[in-house]
């Protein structure tokens, strides 16, 4: 479904990705893990046309979509939820949601979906007419996640959805992703909350130093002791302790 071939790219003169390659099958959830600054978010930006790619290819269903603009990517059925806060501050919650479906031709359907996501995240209905900027951090994140569910995407790129969400809502988001996967949507997710994320994933991908290090079934990665030690905090590495002294 999505395939990256030896992507090199970065910001300005600094190269961040040094040959990222992987492919993910249709209708699966893949979780990307890796240390802070490994280039996870950068990979997403590369796919979605927000990064200066020096070389390599992004293929979507076999079609070359390297360096397509975000609008084109949406046209291909890809949506993207970036890391951090990404709402339109002075527009109301409802109008923020509406923007999530702005590219759809069938607006009636979008309105209907808005009702559905508002059922799923009741807070959104409660604060329907409030400005997005006035919401709390987690409420804004809910808004963002909900906003990504309004179209009929083939592929969802979702970067750390759990930041700021209360535990029950994290579970709710994961359940939603599983439901979508079961309907045939492909999901690529970055999560530091890696244990829970890998638990619902089909595949896991370890990224480090701008390169893919491991790519395997999620269960196998969870079981791998090296992964556990280095990225899942199973045990504090020697480095951190050394640095302190």
């Amino acid at each position, binding site marked *: 479904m999505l395939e990256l071939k030896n992507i090199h790219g970065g910001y300005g003169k600094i190269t961040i990705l040094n040959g990222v390659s992987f492919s993910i099958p249709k209708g699966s959830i893949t979780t990307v893990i890796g240390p802070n600054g490994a280039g996870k978010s950068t990979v997403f930006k590369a796919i979605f046309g927000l990064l200066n790619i020096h070389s390599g290819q992004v293929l979507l269903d076999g079609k070359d979509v390297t360096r397509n603009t975000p609008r084109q990517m949406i046209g291909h059925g890809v949506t993207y939820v970036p890391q951090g806060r990404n709402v339109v501050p002075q527009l109301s919650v409802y109008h923020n949601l509406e923007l999530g479906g702005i590219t759809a031709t069938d607006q009636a359907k979008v309105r209907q979906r808005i009702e559905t996501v508002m059922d799923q995240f009741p807070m959104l209905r409660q604060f329907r007419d409030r400005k997005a900027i006035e919401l709390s951090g987690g409420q804004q994140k809910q808004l963002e996640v909900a906003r990504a569910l309004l179209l009929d995407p083939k592929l969802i790129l979702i970067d750390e959805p759990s930041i700021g969400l209360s535990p029950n809502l994290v579970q709710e988001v994961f359940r939603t992703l599983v439901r979508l996967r079961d309907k045939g949507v492909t999901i690529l997710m970055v999560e530091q909350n890696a244990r829970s994320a890998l638990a619902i994933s089909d595949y896991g991908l370890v990224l480090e130093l701008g390169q893919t290090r491991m790519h395997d079934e999620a269960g196998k990665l969870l079981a791998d002791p090296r992964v556990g030690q280095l*990225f899942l905090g199973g045990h504090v590495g020697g480095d951190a302790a050394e640095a302190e002294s």
Partner: protein
Amino acid sequence: MSMPVLSVRNIEKSFGGIRAVNGVSFDVHKGEILGLIGPNGSGKSTLFNCILGQLPPDGGDVSVNGRNVSGMRASDLNRLGVGRTFQQLSVFPKMSVLDNIILAGQEHHGSMLSRLFGPGDAGLTAEAEKLIAFFRLSHLRDTLAGSLSYGQQKLVDAAMAFMAGPSLVLLDEPAGGVNLTMLAGLKERLTAYNAEHGTTFVVIEHNMEFVMSLCTRIIVLSEGSIIAEGTPDEIRANQAVIDAYLGG
């Protein structure tokens, strides 16, 4: 019992009809690591902002080490030894990591005048570098903070709270986006600091594993009011908390 480091009495705050914080009172004692949890929008960040002078509360009092600090400006509070982080990333994007960290400490060294005529780094470079090394950011020392990844910025943000040698630190979601291994390091740092300097912490966090293993006591906020208070185990077992927050 000794005087509480932080004492919060009846804090109230509304935003045009929404009662974000609804008469919250609690005490934090020296050396405690207090967890503050609760559903999204329950008023945790607003409570922090009211305590620390970023927002004027509608009512209530705050005292630090027995001194009433209601209405005090954030910078003065900080000089009393109260540090904090924000929920949203807030580093200084166009300053290097080192400058970010030094800035966090410089106002605690010398007078206004000595800061003009004294050394450019206020004598803090070595200390800052140690802190940077601890968070494994040494190679990024001279990089602009704005071009770090989310998690790296979060670490810089946390590091800044320690620079001034505070006696009380309020952390708003320090774990969000931080890699689990680094997070374990952060936890260790907090505990060690707490043990060594007796520094008191109040931590807002949604990462339950982190909160439960770090905190000695936890307060649960819901719709602006405290609905539960207790040790991690008590909270984990509290049905009201499970319903409102933790989920099944």
